[in-house]
């Protein structure tokens, strides 16, 4: 009895989570069947825990923007800009001088804060354009995405920035108690966002605004301010993803992760987020993320070219759209 009510609380009323779990198990079974000896290795799953977090955080950011019926096409631009800004900072203070570990740690800390600050600032800009100037989210973030990527190009002049301090690389490559640091970060971020969305006024307001913007205003919700906050959050999350990405690859470049945009949208939509607003759960997005990471690592082991994997991601997105449409037509 208690078990079933617990399950209900976790899975929610909709059957979406269940459908996702089924998809995940199917993907897992298919990939294990296709190449049992290579897919089912500890190493494979470990590498997934390193690659997954940056994409997962971007997908959660995308979900937050979608909650109010918006979208954020600038997340990849923000992520790259955050990594590059920190890289430029490290180059100006660290390279060429031998400093004590304490100083390096301090500088790394400053770098992290700078990256987060630029993400927050980018989010403020998006939020301002969308909630105050009333520009449609698609066009506003399309424009700011160009600006952020453009600034990244201006800062680097084109080539990648390499040579981050070890402490920075630890964020993307390290291990704490045998678990990948980025994965731990992902769990913390996902948990925090889940609590924020389900247990705070802000989260509930965002859902209500997304469900019916007009009714939300007549009910006295401060729509503009809430939307503003949601894009700030999106920007901050994108910056965290940028830190992890540049830490993992030990480099930052203006056109890294270009395909992440489509993938983040796909994971958010697959995870049950309604792009028209009002619906979206961190748990759903996380399961969708796992399913798609298994899928893409499986195809990589099968030596599919990256272009074909892009095709599979796109095809999967269309398939999910069709599936969701059929499921919703029952009601």
């Amino acid at each position: 009895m208690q078990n079933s009510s617990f399950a209900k609380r976790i899975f929610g009323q909709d059957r979406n989570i269940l459908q996702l779990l089924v998809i995940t198990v199917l993907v897992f079974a298919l990939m294990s069947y296709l190449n049992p000896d290579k897919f089912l290795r500890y190493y494979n799953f470990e590498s997934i825990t390193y690659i997954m977090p940056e994409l997962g955080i971007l997908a959660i950011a995308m979900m937050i923007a979608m909650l109010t019926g918006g979208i954020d096409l600038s997340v990849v631009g923000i992520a790259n800009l955050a990594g590059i800004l920190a890289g430029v900072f490290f180059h100006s203070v660290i390279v060429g001088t031998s400093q004590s570990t304490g100083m390096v740690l301090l500088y790394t800390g400053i770098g992290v804060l700078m990256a987060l600050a630029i993400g927050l600032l980018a989010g403020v800009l998006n939020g301002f354009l969308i909630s105050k100037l009333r520009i449609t989210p698609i066009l506003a973030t399309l424009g700011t995405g160009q600006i952020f990527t453009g600034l990244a190009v201006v800062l680097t002049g084109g080539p990648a920035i390499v040579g981050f301090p070890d402490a920075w690389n630890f964020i993307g490559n390290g291990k704490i108690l045998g678990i990948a640091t980025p994965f731990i970060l992902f769990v913390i971020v996902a948990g925090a966002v889940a609590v924020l969305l389900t247990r705070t006024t802000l989260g509930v307001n965002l859902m209500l605004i997304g469900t019916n913007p007009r009714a939300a205003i007549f009910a006295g919700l401060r729509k503009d301010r809430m939307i503003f906050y949601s894009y700030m959050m999106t920007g901050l999350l994108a910056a965290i993803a940028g830190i992890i990405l540049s830490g993992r690859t030990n480099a930052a470049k203006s056109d890294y992760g270009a395909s992440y945009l489509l993938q983040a949208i796909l994971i958010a939509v697959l995870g049950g987020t309604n792009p028209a607003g009002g619906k979206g759960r961190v748990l759903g997005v996380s399961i969708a993320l796992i399913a798609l990471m298994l899928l893409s690592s499986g195809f990589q082991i099968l030596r599919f070219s990256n272009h074909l994997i892009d095709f599979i991601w796109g095809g999967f997105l269309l398939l999910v759209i069709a599936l969701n449409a059929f499921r919703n037509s029952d009601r």
Partner: protein
Amino acid sequence: MTLFRRSEFIIACILFAAMIIIGLINPAFWSLDNLFGLLRSNVIIGIMALGVLVVMISGGIDVSFTAFAAAAMYLTIKLMIYMGYEGVFLPFVAATLIGLFLGAFNAFFIHTFRMIPLIVTLGTGSVVRGLLLGLVGTSVINIDKMPQQLIAFAKTDLVSLTSATGTNFGLTAMILIYLGLALVTHLFLRYTMAGRSIFALGGAPEAASRVGFNTRRTLFFVYCFAGALAGFAGLLHGSMIWLANPRDFAGLELDVIAAVVLGGASIFGGRGSVTGTLLGVFMLVMVKNSLIIMKVDTTWQRVVVGLIIIVATALTAWRDRKKLV
């Protein structure tokens, strides 16, 4: 509506002011060589923009057309080489049909599953690009392999001049194709019932279907039209630059959408004009090309495009502003 309040008039004024400023910074802007070059750069973006304009008037958006253009160009030229076909007319028909067919795919998904056009077209664009690069090939077809007739066709000039330094330059005749397509689109949108149905669908979908417009047919038409124009523009682009690169046009969709929005079209649908789009395309191309003339580092190009999008959308958002919601 008086002339002065029309957005086309405002855009034309801004365009004129910008031309004077750029001309003051570097008088080389006004050289015929530069102006002919500018007009030439308008052709491809402009033809694609006409398609995007029609999609936007219907209340949708399309980010997949650049992938369609690349697919139409690459497939057609590959096929021409494979069959040893020498000709101009049929290849363009083929490229247009490839684009049209892919556009129908967009419309099918958007209509059948009632999904947001942005997400559908992101998906179809990725599918088409992935298949093209993954299955058909990634190698660039160079000038020595390109069908010579296509190159000769795209080389046609309206006016040919010789500059003081002895180099030849001319105004490409392709500009006539662009302007012809623009005129047809304009007449179609203004004076046919099918054209009006696109405005009706974009303005209020429910009302459009209540008064008896076949919204399904309109939706299919709109995305097929955008796909067909993109396919045509794709092959024309290959002919004009003398090579076919399947990775071409990546990211160009942003420029095209920016140009259309700059031209006064509303992303909510129901508003937009061919005249505005022509001006918007010219403005975008001019600003991008003139950065070099104005001695601005080219790394700033994307920042400038981004700023243009923001300013243009802020202006249209202000124009379309509504109370409360």
